[in-house]
């Protein structure tokens, strides 16, 4: 890989994507925890008409001009969403959905209109739909880096406020902090980070850059600081990997490639995370069930032996299965009891409880009685 990164374009692209991944990953943690995932999606879709309008009005394809257009459109969309929520009975997801589709529809319409014009200068605007990292210039990377640094400095300074207002905004207000101010700060940072990512990832998938790394990071940790850091790392890795792949393979759009890398990280996190992962949950559930059935078997043996006091204590497997309600093989369960020293097999192949098994059964029985 080190050979690849000596290529100037590739290095630019990788660095740009890395800065983008760090910024959006770190910020995305707050978006996810504040349940604003859809807001990011609305803002990024809504920035499309801003890009096209900026091109129509100013007539340049300079990325700075187009991105300022995008930021203005994104901010207007946010204000629309907030005022719809405040002034109507439409719920927040409804408001976001409406604004997203209206703005994006408008953007697509304007884009089609511009592209139908004969002059060729509009070529390349559609790159903003899915992103084209190969078109990144060193100054774009510098902008991404500066914005990344500003975002992270803001987060460090206002860490306590961001945490408080994400966890319990009402209580935070009772302490004298302004929910409005922190809302504006976090949303503004989200808008800015989305806008910086538009060139690389595109309007359609940009919001995943916020959400996917954060949702993955949440799986691995229970600490906010660790979640934000991990999310930034996931964002950076996917950014670099996706941008590099799309630069090496022609006609591979950058946005979808980065998002596929993120999706892989997310799936791995969803399945294999130690505590919240699906597999660990399944294992835990299965283990509990097995433990419960072991206890049940121990008690069954105990009752069986109590009933036949004085006679032979040992029973064959068939008798034992007969008194059990549960069907299925009890061979493994008996073997496990044996390995724990709670049951033993006589020379005739019959099963009986050991002294420890007897005490254990009484313990379980008493425990059960105390609980009920």
């Amino acid at each position, binding site marked *: 890989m080190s050979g690849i990164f000596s290529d100037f374009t590739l290095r630019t692209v990788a660095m740009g994507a890395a800065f983008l991944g760090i910024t959006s990953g770190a910020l995305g943690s707050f978006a996810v925890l504040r349940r604003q995932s859809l807001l990011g999606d609305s803002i990024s879709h809504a920035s499309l008409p801003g890009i096209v309008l900026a091109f129509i009005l100013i007539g340049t394809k300079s990325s700075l001009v187009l991105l300022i257009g995008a930021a203005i459109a994104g901010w207007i969309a946010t204000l629309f969403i907030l005022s719809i929520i405040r002034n109507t009975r439409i719920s927040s997801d409804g408001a976001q959905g409406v604004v997203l589709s209206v703005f994006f529809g408008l953007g697509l319409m304007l884009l089609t209109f511009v592209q139908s014009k004969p002059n060729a200068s509009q070529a390349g605007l559609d790159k903003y739909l899915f992103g084209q990292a190969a078109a990144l210039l060193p100054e774009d990377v510098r902008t991404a880096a500066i914005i990344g640094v500003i975002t992270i400095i803001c987060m460090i300074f206002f860490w306590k406020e961001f945490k*408080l207002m994400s966890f319990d905004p009402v209580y935070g207000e009772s302490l004298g*902090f302004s929910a409005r101010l922190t809302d504006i700060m976090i949303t503004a940072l989200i808008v800015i980070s989305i806008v910086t990512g538009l060139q690389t990832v595109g309007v359609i998938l940009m919001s995943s850059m916020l959400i996917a790394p954060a949702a993955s990071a949440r799986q691995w940790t229970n600490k*906010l600081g660790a979640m934000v850091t991990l999310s930034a790392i996931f964002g950076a890795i996917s950014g670099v990997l996706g941008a590099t792949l799309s630069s090496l393979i022609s006609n591979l759009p950058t946005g979808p490639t980065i998002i596929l890398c993120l999706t892989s990280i997310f799936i791995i996190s969803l399945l294999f995370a130690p505590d919240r992962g699906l597999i660990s949950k399944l294992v835990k559930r299965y283990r509990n069930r097995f433990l419960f059935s072991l206890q049940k078997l121990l008690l069954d043996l105990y009752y069986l032996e109590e009933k036949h006091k004085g006679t032979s204590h040992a029973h064959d497997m068939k008798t034992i299965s007969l008194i059990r309600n549960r069907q299925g093989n009890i061979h493994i369960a008996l073997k496990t009891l044996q390995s724990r020293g709670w049951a033993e097999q006589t020379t005739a192949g019959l099963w009986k409880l050991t002294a420890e098994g007897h005490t254990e059964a009484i313990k379980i029985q008493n425990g059960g009685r105390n609980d009920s």
Partner: protein
Amino acid sequence: MSDLKWAIEAEDITIAYNDKPVVWDVDLRVPEGVMMAIIGPNGAGKSTLLKGLLGLIPLTAGQVTVFGDTYKNQRNKVAYVPQRTAVDWDFPTTVLDVVLMGTYGKLGWIKRPGKNEFFKATEALDKVGMREFADRQISQLSGGQQQRVFLARALTQEAEIYLMDEPFQGVDAATERAIIALLKELKNAGKTVVAVHHDLQTVSDYFDWVTLLNVRRIASGTIKEAFTPEILKKAYGGRLSFLEDRNGCPDTLEE
């Protein structure tokens, strides 16, 4: 009565959601050093009134003073304990971290909690019997433990007035006893406690003052003055049919 000092004086409080009044023209005076329950049927505006007092929702009309000054100037003297269910307990943070949030108000913007704040938070956790849970992830707490954490968070504010929204909602009996013991301790230290409460059976055991609310203020005063069958019937309508005889509290309220 004339020697009472008022911790909270609220006049003509009206709060409306979408033009529908939830709290209508309520006067509320809380004397310093009492434990007051705010009771009333569901939808009576109890939590709303509490939030209105705290300036958490805009008042349509009326004004609130705390120790004779505006709430804004006296904010540091008031601690709020929101309903336990108001937050997402799956938030990635620890018990100690949540309790530390109580110290944020005095710290103000940007400044971070230091040694002193950590000490206060640990002390508060000790008081609610949760010290060994300091590093526990909050998603692993039971309802009662969540409520204790919220109370500990309010304790770190070292306030004069504690406003609590349903502190006994869905908590275990041991926690309820622990909380009430703590509140009585606060009262003995001269603090004022106001709690939205819904268990009429325990009102006279736990509190010495009571306000009955059903959109309007039905009554307010000491338990003896305001917790009478007639007034309860007025607040709850004819729907009450329980109440055993306890400390001179009414026995039945059936129609």
